[in-house]
């Protein structure tokens, strides 16, 4: 492997803190194992490793921090296991809560910006087209590659913080232009234009793309426009059901002005024509139980934007919720809602605002497993395994109406 003089000096301990040497050792070993022949400088990091999985991760990050490791590039933090503004919201046992907290503190000590959000790209962290970054959290990885055109692979625990400390990542995969070309086309031109405008279509499209493509880069054709929140939902769905880290939406995303560019001048290996039946099947696969009474509604995976929070207020009108409604969001969004009291208006409806964390990574949902309705493909995908709750997928309007009724209400006009 070819290392620069600076990289070699850090690796040998000649320059930098002992914690930086540990981080460089991790990055170089990962590069070797992945078959990369060099490292690539990165301009930012997003750190997924601040979510508590056990004491060992806390002890490691505390050691890094104690040995002087500090991030060399701006780095945001993904969700932790605690709502730091309301620690009692989470039912982790006290010893685990303490270790989860220590893990979050260790990341702050290393110089990470305490954003505690899985949507850092809506909290100001927006690398530019073509910039190399090292991000973790599958939805954020898919978003930053797809919507912003910055370049990262999926960096997980330990490697994410190691990349931010060294300012380097193994040069492989999506860091390299030739691996960003689509080889598969997902054609939506057979779907009705009305369906293509529905917010709820996008998480379903993502879930479908994840199942169809696995980790292959695909180009989506037949979609003229999409909002940022719609693309966010699509990326999260695709990254949950598959290992998707990059989707080119032709005419919409920055590396795909046209199909030829998205394919890098090559012919597509396969073109998949999506029909309505495939969409409906993908939608139905997100529900694991039948319509009927529900026990909770979970919104905000990825973390809800200000516009999405205000849409809940608009849809709900004055009708209070009969079941708990959890909205997961970052502090950046909470601050925007506080400007005109929208946060209190949500609370008055019966919303639990979940800040800094999310309901599928830490015990917040009702202790007794029940039925959880959501408009998020990612929540639907992970709910049962992580929480024991059975998901029912619906549009945001259906989720709000169902929360008011206490049982599933359907809107027949959407699909």
């Amino acid at each position: 492997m070819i290392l620069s003089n600076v990289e070699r000096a850090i690796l040998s301990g000649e320059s930098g803190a002992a914690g930086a040497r540990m981080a460089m050792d991790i990055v170089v070993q990962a590069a070797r194992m992945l078959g990369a022949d060099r490292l690539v400088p990165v301009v930012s990091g997003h750190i997924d490793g601040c979510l508590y999985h056990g004491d060992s991760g806390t002890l490691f990050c505390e050691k890094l921090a104690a040995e002087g490791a500090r991030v060399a590039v701006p780095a945001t933090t993904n969700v932790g296991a605690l709502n730091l503004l309301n620690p009692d919201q989470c039912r982790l046992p006290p010893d685990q809560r303490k270790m989860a907290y220590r893990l979050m503190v260790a990341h702050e000590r290393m110089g990470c910006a305490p954003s505690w959000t899985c949507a850092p790209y809506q909290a100001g962290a927006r690398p530019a087209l073509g910039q190399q970054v090292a991000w973790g959290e599958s939805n954020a990885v898919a978003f930053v590659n797809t919507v912003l055109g910055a370049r990262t692979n999926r960096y997980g625990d330990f490697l994410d913080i190691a990349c931010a400390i060294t300012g380097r990542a193994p040069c492989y995969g999506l860091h390299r232009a030739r691996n960003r070309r689509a080889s598969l086309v997902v054609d939506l031109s057979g779907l009705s234009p009305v369906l293509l405008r529905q917010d709820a279509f996008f998480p379903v499209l993502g879930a479908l793309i994840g199942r169809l493509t696995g980790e292959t880069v695909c180009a989506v054709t037949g979609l003229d426009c999409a909002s940022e929140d719609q693309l966010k939902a699509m990326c999260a769905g695709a990254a949950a059901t598959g290992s998707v880290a990059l989707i080119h939406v032709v005419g919409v995303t920055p590396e795909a002005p046209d199909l030829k560019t998205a394919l890098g001048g090559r012919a597509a290996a396969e073109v998949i024509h999506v029909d309505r039946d495939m969409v409906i099947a993908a939608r139905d696969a997100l529900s694991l139980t039948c319509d009927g009474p529900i026990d909770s509604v979970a919104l905000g995976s990825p973390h809800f934007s200000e516009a999405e929070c205000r849409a809940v207020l608009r849809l709900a009108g004055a009708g209070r919720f009969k079941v708990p409604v959890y909205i997961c969001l970052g502090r950046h969004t909470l601050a925007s809602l506080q400007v005109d009291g929208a946060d209190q208006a949500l609370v008055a409806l019966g919303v639990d605002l979940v800040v800094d964390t999310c309901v599928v990574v830490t015990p917040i949902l009702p202790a007794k497993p029940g039925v959880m309705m959501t408009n998020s493909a990612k929540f639907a995908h992970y709910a049962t395994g992580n929480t024991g709750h059975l998901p029912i997928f619906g549009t945001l309007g259906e989720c709000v109406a169902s929360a008011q009724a206490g049982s599933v209400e359907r809107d027949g006009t959407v699909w």
Partner: protein
Amino acid sequence: MTRWQAKVLLEGTAQAKVLRLDAPISFWGGIDPATSQVILAGHPQFGERVSGKILVIRQLIGSSSSSAVMLELAYGGLAPAALILGARDAILPIGVVVAGQMGWKTLPVLVLPDPPFQTEDVLSVDDLGMIKLLPSPDD
């Protein structure tokens, strides 16, 4: 004695019984770090413990939090004796690299496409990636 030459991702030696995982698995959500048991519902090896075994995994699927589960297993003294993977991977071995930095027991990680080993085979693994099938103690 039958031998195979594997590619070494992380070197080390081991001699133990094989546990072969017959379906793809992500360690995160698939292995309980507190017991080392396979907890993925419907997995053919559901309930088996990976601790102390030469774990043969033809196909990993990838939550990147699997590194954390690997580290937690090493921390609790419940790590496998070795990993033999069907394909290159950096997620699990990173957990082992970090265990080494923490001064906890590490394990060899090897890559051998289509590994032929079956549960209950007894293998030895050396620093250079040579895998040997040993006579089973029951024979």
